[in-house]
């Protein structure tokens, strides 16, 4: 594939449109861009990377006394950006674009990537809209992701490092190889061989296989569970059968007992005329039992009340004596009072007699009938003494003795209502006993109406009926219980049957699993085989390149690539060289990278930014001698004028260069840069701001920042 044109618009130092034409009638595959620092070499290099992949990354570095952080370079924003800084700062609607035209096996290729601000004065990439359009051959224009995929089918992103090679990366590779810190070129080799796709395929297949295995495992587990459930269900069927049989047996027993009960009831119906008597007897039995129950309490009441019955009887007679004692006590008290009165009267009368003076105590006059009064008092005294004498002579019991006797008799005295209480209790008892006797007579009378046989039959049938009713009840309970057991067993069986209907193992899954396993093995074997072949090819190619570029072929004879793609320079004895020169290591690095590119079969231009920065003059020359040929892939270098002198390089490789350009500012031009003039008859103005070609009259402003891309005539 060959580049035809490149159009830059507002990118890097290139304000406005800059077309670069790569078409040339010269033989040779070499292209060179020469420039001083900060003129735009790397910007063209990055413009092509951006056009192809939509992003540009750079390593952290220090240049011109400034520290640049590594990472993705934004289109717009603060610090280092891709867009032309004048356009970014001054254009109201910022826009940047790169168009790349090429010719390949599939026909012409046109890639257009544009970044337009979505707002006025966009300040970050979020405010920029990216448009990508790709047209290959006669195919319709593709946009966005499809367009990107189309680009990467020609310029594989994973192989970017083999066609976009910058001097800094080369130095890094070289340094790593020198310090032996690099753990081989495994990643690079994988990329070259397309192994990442295979490895991704391997990972994808492994993931798919894990999914299938998981499904198989799940199915196997489910199948095991189903199998167990089927076994359980079969067992449960047997259990259910037994339970049904048991329930049937219980039902049969119930029917038998119910039939017997019906038979007994029919027999009892035969004695239907006796049924009322039997019912009456039952009623009487109940009544008798009830009365007997009551009689217990009534009888106890009667006994309780009868405890004082003897007192009632005893008091019939005892009460007379008791009252008599009470009378005696009353009289005794009176008698004692009378005696006391008599004693007191005697004392008073005797005192009066002794103290009598015949003078009235009130009027103090001599009493007229003194003797008569004395006689009267003596008579009264005599009478009182007689009373007292009679009192002493009489034999009466004392009040104290009478009180004791009254107390003793009072112990025998019943309460006033004792008799009524006793009679009431006795009456109640008698009434109840009479009722009982009446009922018992009625019972006996009724009972006599039943013949002994009938009675015996009825009683027997009644007892039988009772037993059978109890049996029916029990059998019903057993049958219900057995039915419940059957229902439960049926439910359990249904549950197990549902559970046993799980998935069965799909043989297809096993087949797919086996196929994937084989594929994985095949991929791994393929990767291993490819890697082995690649190692051999890379080693062979790298050795060829190294031998052509190396300036001491007698000392360093080749490059060895081991199985892990660690590289070493071999000495003349075919052994790893000790402490090879830095130039040799740089050349080895270039050789290996080129070998990898070669092995990869990439048919794209190679862009080499500042390729000679770490090479000596000899190796720089050898490098161009090797890469620039009269035909083959385009090989573009973006060189600092210190690396390669323009005139010298152009002169030396004229036959192998298709095109050469310088990138500069107007003030860099010491001679006329009109293509048809190129005169060195140039004058400066007095202020050093303008130069004028005396041959053609062309003037250029030395203060202008407009970058010039000038084709070097070959």
């Amino acid at each position: 594939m060959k580049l035809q044109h490149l159009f830059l618009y507002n990118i890097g130092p290139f304000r406005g449109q800059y077309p670069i034409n790569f078409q040339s009638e010269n033989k040779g595959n070499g292209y060179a861009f020469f420039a001083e620092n900060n003129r735009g070499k790397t910007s063209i290099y990055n413009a092509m990377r951006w056009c192809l992949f939509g992003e540009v990354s750079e390593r952290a570095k220090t240049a011109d006394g400034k520290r640049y952080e590594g990472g993705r370079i934004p289109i717009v924003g603060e610090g280092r950006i891709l867009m032309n800084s004048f356009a970014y700062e001054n254009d109201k609607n910022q826009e940047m674009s790169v168009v790349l035209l090429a010719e390949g096996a599939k026909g012409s290729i046109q890639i257009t990537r544009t970044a337009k601000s979505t707002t006025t004065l966009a300040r970050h990439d979020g405010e920029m809209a990216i448009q990508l359009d790709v047209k290959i051959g006669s195919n319709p224009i593709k946009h966005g992701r499809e367009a990107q995929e189309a680009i990467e089918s020609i310029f594989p992103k994973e192989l970017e490092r083999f066609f976009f090679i910058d001097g800094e990366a080369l130095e890094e590779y070289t340094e790593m190889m020198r310090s032996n810190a690099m753990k081989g070129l495994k990643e690079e080799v994988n990329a070259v061989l397309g192994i990442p796709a295979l490895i991704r395929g391997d990972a994808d297949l492994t993931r798919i296989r894990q999914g299938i295995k998981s499904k198989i495992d799940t199915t196997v587990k489910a199948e095991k569970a189903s199998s167990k459930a089927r076994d359980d269900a079969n067992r449960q069927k047997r259990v259910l059968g037994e339970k049904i049989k048991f329930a049937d047996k219980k039902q049969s027993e119930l029917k038998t007992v119910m039939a017997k009960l019906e038979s007994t009831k029919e027999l009892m119906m035969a004695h239907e005329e006796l049924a009322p008597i039997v019912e009456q007897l039952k009623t009487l039995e109940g009544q008798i039992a009830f009365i007997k129950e009551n009689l217990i309490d009534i009888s106890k009441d009667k006994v309780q009340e009868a405890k004082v019955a003897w007192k009632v009887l005893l008091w019939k007679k005892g009460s007379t004596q008791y009252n008599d004692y009470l009378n005696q006590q009353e009289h005794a008290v009176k008698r004692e009072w009378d005696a006391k009165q008599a004693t007191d009267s005697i004392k008073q009368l005797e005192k009066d007699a002794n103290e009598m003076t015949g003078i009235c105590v009130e009027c103090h006059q001599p009493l007229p009938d003194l003797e008569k009064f004395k006689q009267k008092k003596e008579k009264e005294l005599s009478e009182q003494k007689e009373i007292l004498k009679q009192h002493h002579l009489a034999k009466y019991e004392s009040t104290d003795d009478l009180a004791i006797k009254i107390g003793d008799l009072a112990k025998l005295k019943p309460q006033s209502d004792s008799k009524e209480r006793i009679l009431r209790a006795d009456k109640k008892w008698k009434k109840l006993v009479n009722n009982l006797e009446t009922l018992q007579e009625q019972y006996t009378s009724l009972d006599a109406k039943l013949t002994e046989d009938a009675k015996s039959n009825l009683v027997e049938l009644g007892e039988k009926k009772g037993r059978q009713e109890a049996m029916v009840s029990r059998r019903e309970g057993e049958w219900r219980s057995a039915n419940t057991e059957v229902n439960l067993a049926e439910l359990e069986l249904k549950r197990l049957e549902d559970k046993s209907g799980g998935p069965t193992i799909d043989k297809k899954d096993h087949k797919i699993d086996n196929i994937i396993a084989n594929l994985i093995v095949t991929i791994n074997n393929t990767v291993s085989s490819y890697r082995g072949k690649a190692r051999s090819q890379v080693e062979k190619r790298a050795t060829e390149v190294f031998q052509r570029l190396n300036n001491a072929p007698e000392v360093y004879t080749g490059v060895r690539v081991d199985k892990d793609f660690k590289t070493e320079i071999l000495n003349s004895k075919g052994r790893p060289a000790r402490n090879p020169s830095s130039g040799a290591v740089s050349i080895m690095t270039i050789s290996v990278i080129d070998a990898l590119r070669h092995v990869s079969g990439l048919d794209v231009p190679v862009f080499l930014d500042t390729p000679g920065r770490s090479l000596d003059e000899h190796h720089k020359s050898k490098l161009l001698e090797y890469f620039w040929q009269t035909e083959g892939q385009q090989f573009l270098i973006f060189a600092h004028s210190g690396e390669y002198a323009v005139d010298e390089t152009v002169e030396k490789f004229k036959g192998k260069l298709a095109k050469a350009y310088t990138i500069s500012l107007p003030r860099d031009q010491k001679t006329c840069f009109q293509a048809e003039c190129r005169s060195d008859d140039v004058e400066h103005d007095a202020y050093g701001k303008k130069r004028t070609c005396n041959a053609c009259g062309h003037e250029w402003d030395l203060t202008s920042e407009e970058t010039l891309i000038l084709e070097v005539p070959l």
Partner: protein
Amino acid sequence: MTEQEIKKGSVGISKPSHLFLSSLVQDNENHSEDRPFVSIVEAFRFAFALGYSENKKLKSSGGKEGVAPRQFVVDDYLEILRDEVMLSGQSLGGLISEYAEYGSQEMSKKKSNGGSILDFFL
């Protein structure tokens, strides 16, 4: 006879009367029978009260069955029987026993005639 010469004696009753009085003691298994007394002592006390209330005594013939002396204290009845005891010279227990014997006979007759014991109150 003086107060101090009153003899207490023991109480007793003829065997048939004792048997009869025993039949008047309550039976927890048979409440429909006329058995109004909680013990034979109570039945004896009732019989004595009946004889005394009717002022009738009866000497028992043949052997006698004793009545629990601790539960029947003759002194309790001294006051109502003092005069009679002092006049007759009998022991207090002997007099009580004669009244009780009579009472038992009367009760037995009443029972035999279909009456109840407590009808004596009517």
